[in-house]
């Protein structure tokens, strides 16, 4: 026995000297995925088992998500073992393809659910915005590499900044999904930041955006209420964000229910499966609001553990990106890192009422097939870039 293990170990060591494979990243992702399935079941079993539209099947959501996760893991494995430069050829196709898919939502292929037309029926239902995120990462990485030093010129800078805009506007206007548009733009902005040697421009733009947002909020609070009622949906969301208890029955309903869930979790939570808020009180609990459920059932302890897992995941992405053998690989990983980080931050900010309510799911954990499949494919890309890293001989 002892001898045999020795053999295997020396074999592994030999392989490890040649290749790098980020097991900790894989482990974190698989853990989040498994944890997500448990929480989806916890969130949905009561509703699913008492509702005829889900065949009274307690595991309805669990089964669908488990199936999507399997698909995603297959995609991840495939992508991991394909050298990432292979995908460069598809960069332009991906960009144009995602634009076409978004446009297809307007055709009879589009599916409407929960009051928004965001999905496509391609045998299975797919959310084009999720494809667009991956396509944008690929397209920008490829484009920046082709541009070379041109990125240092103002023209190059604004070109990279402008390229994502058509897709962002399509996602926003056609699928009525502002949050995905913001995420796509955020990813592009981050990739541009990493590729460009400059700092100043970014801080000016970043400062400008923050100042503009602050001005809008202050402006709204100073306006009198009669005028506000004439203005639409988004200004109402902002007001509900500022004083949720005044809009408890309307715009702030979900936010307030989310705060009830989070606040009643306390230090160690009510125990898994014991949430009260999931019993129909908190809308979209298995989806955008799943972090609130985690806090209610597992307490601040569970909530911080989940955040730390994402921090670890992002940290691993950073290590891989820094050590990537070329800029293309590094930018791909930076794009994925940005995608995950922005989405996690925005999701938790929404459930804690830190920003106005907008529908953003929590990566790997929230219910949603397209999201998990494409996220896992992105992790495959990261692992693939990681495999390209050569570890120096120890001898």
């Amino acid at each position, binding site marked *: 026995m002892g001898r045999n293990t020795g053999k295997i170990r020396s074999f592994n060591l030999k392989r490890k000297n040649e290749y790098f494979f980020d097991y900790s990243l894989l482990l974190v992702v698989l853990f989040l995925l498994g944890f997500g399935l448990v929480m989806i079941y916890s969130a949905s079993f009561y509703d699913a088992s008492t509702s005829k539209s889900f065949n009274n099947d307690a595991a309805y959501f669990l089964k669908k998500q488990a199936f999507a996760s399997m698909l995603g893991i297959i995609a991840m494995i495939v992508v991991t073992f394909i050298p990432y430069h292979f995908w460069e050829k598809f960069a332009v196709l991906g960009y144009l393809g995602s634009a076409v898919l978004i446009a297809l939502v307007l055709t009879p292929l589009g599916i409407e659910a929960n009051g928004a037309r965001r999905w496509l029926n391609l045998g299975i239902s797919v959310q084009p915005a999720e494809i667009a995120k991956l396509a944008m990462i690929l397209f920008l990485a490829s484009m920046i590499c082709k541009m070379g030093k041109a990125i240092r010129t103002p023209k190059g800078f604004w070109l990279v900044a402008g390229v994502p805009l058509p897709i962002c506007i399509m996602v926003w206007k056609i699928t009525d999904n502002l949050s995905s548009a913001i995420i796509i733009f955020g990813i592009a902005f981050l990739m541009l930041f*990493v590729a460009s040697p400059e700092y100043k421009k970014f801080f000016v733009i970043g400062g400008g955006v923050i100042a503009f947002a602050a001005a809008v909020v202050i402006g709204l609070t100073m306006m009198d209420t009669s005028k506000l009622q004439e203005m639409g949906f988004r200004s109402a969301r902002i007001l509900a964000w500022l004083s949720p208890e005044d809009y408890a029955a309307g715009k702030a309903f979900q936010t307030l229910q989310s705060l009830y869930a989070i606040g009643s979790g306390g230090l160690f939570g009510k125990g898994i499966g014991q949430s009260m808020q999931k019993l129909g009180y908190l809308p979209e609990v298995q989806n955008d609001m799943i972090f609130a459920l985690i806090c209610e059932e597992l307490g601040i302890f569970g909530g911080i553990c989940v955040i730390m897992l994402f921090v670890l995941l992002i940290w691993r992405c950073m290590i891989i990106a820094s050590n990537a053998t070329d800029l293309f690989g590094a930018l791909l990983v930076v794009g994925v890192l940005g995608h995950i980080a922005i989405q996690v931050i925005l999701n938790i900010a929404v459930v804690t009422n830190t920003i106005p309510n907008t529908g953003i799911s929590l990566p790997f954990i929230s219910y949603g097939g397209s999201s998990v499949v494409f996220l896992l494919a992105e992790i495959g890309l990261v692992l693939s870039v990681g495999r390209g890293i050569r570890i120096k001989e120890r001898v």
Partner: protein
Amino acid sequence: MLKNKTKNREKIVVATILFMILFLGLIARLVYFMVFQSQYYSKKAEDLHVRERYIKAKRGKILDRNGVVLADNVTVCNISVIHNQIQEREKVIDVLCKELNLSREYVEKRVDKVTSIEKIKSNVSKEIGDKIRGYNLAGIKVDEDYKRYYPYGELASKVLGFAGGDNQGIIGLEVIYEEELQGEKGVILTYTDARGIELEERGEKRIEPVDGSNLVTSLDYNIQQYATQLAKVAMEKKEADRVSIIVMNPQNGEVYCMVDVPEFDLNHPFDMGSEYSDLNQMWRNGCINDTYEPGSTFKIITTAAALEENVVSLEQRFYCPGYIMVGDRRIRCHKYGGHGSVSFVEGMQGSCNPTFISLGLTLGVDRYYDYFSKFGLLEKTGVDLPGEAGTIMHKKENIGPVELATVAFGQSFQITPIQMATTVSSLVNGGQRITPHIGLRILDKDGNNIKKYTYDKGETLVSSNTSETLQYLLEQVVDGGTGSNGYVEGYRVGGKTATSQTLPRNSGKYIASYVGFAPADNPQVLALAVVHNPKGVYYGGQVAAPIIRQLFENILPYLDRM
């Protein structure tokens, strides 16, 4: 292929650090909600998730002065079905039809209704409830509940009043002593989902109810029972519309009995029968809720005022030709041909109208009205029952000689029977105003006194001399006057009769009444009987006085022992 330069690596690290800072901010936000605001949001969430179901408290008993229970509680059962717990549908339906005497259609419809809980029948007796529980069928729920129960049915119905389905007093003492009788509801707290469906597996919290306290009244079961009988007999014999009897202690205002037949069954207070068109009509307590023209019994009040003002002496002579001229109006005496020349005592004995009209006119409007007011006749008596009616009286500036003359012998204004009994009590008891009352004490469930209601004697209305003279005069009325039917062998009784025509004057309807008290020289009990619209002989002396005589014959020996 482009290299991943040092500058790019630096920026990757900078971006990651920026993200980490944002994560720290979010963790701080979580700490704020889950540590510092946790109690606030937990409370809000709890309020949202919990449903309160109330448990009825046992209502306090109402007792008579000797501890006889006049209002009690019985345990009853509410039978309901829970649709999705039913296993043997047919058997459930069979049992419910059989035990509750319900039609199959009715039961089937309720058993098949998809609701969380459906009531089949409430207020089912405990025996039937226990029997149904004995079948041990899943899906049938038998809840125990309390229901007000009045052991003597009609007895003192309008005084006691009754309590409604939510245990709340609706009329009578049940309303006035609501706070003491009702107790405190208990609560069952259960968790529900957002649709309001109870989650049994999460258990429940119970806060037990606190039973109501018991009320001891001044009523005497025996007197009330006997007076009710007499009133019923009189009503039947005289085909009267209504008969009211009040018996009270003139010294302290304690009411021994208050009868207003026809009474109604307190255990079925909503069954009107054919003679009423309106429940309020059936529930009205004629002794306090309605006014009447008192007629000649009011001559007691005129006499008291005249004696107090020294405008009359017992020997003073009056002449009655059968009428008296007041201004240009001729007011007749009830005795055709008149009483002729009478002393004041004889005038009292004969209830001679011109005699009392003369007294009234001698006093004059100012003095007469002052006494009317001083005796408390313009105010309510303050009896502890709801809905006491006020006096209907002329405004002082509208009283001319004719009005004064009619008021002096008890007509052209209206008071309640309780006001009549109370005012006469206050004049003959030595001259101090009393407050009629029924509630005496509140006892806790172990019989300890928690609260005592005290009614101090009010202001002095007349001197004790005047009061003694009144006692003498009224004893003369019984001994040799119109009140001779009120005479009770072996007791000194004072009294006064009255016969008044109801409005409109030509209707031929009368009210016969009599107020009596004993012993005449130290009154310990005073009784008033009012018979509305008796047929045949309608004089108070013939109709009402015998009622009080019979009552006194029975209760005076009984009260002597008390």
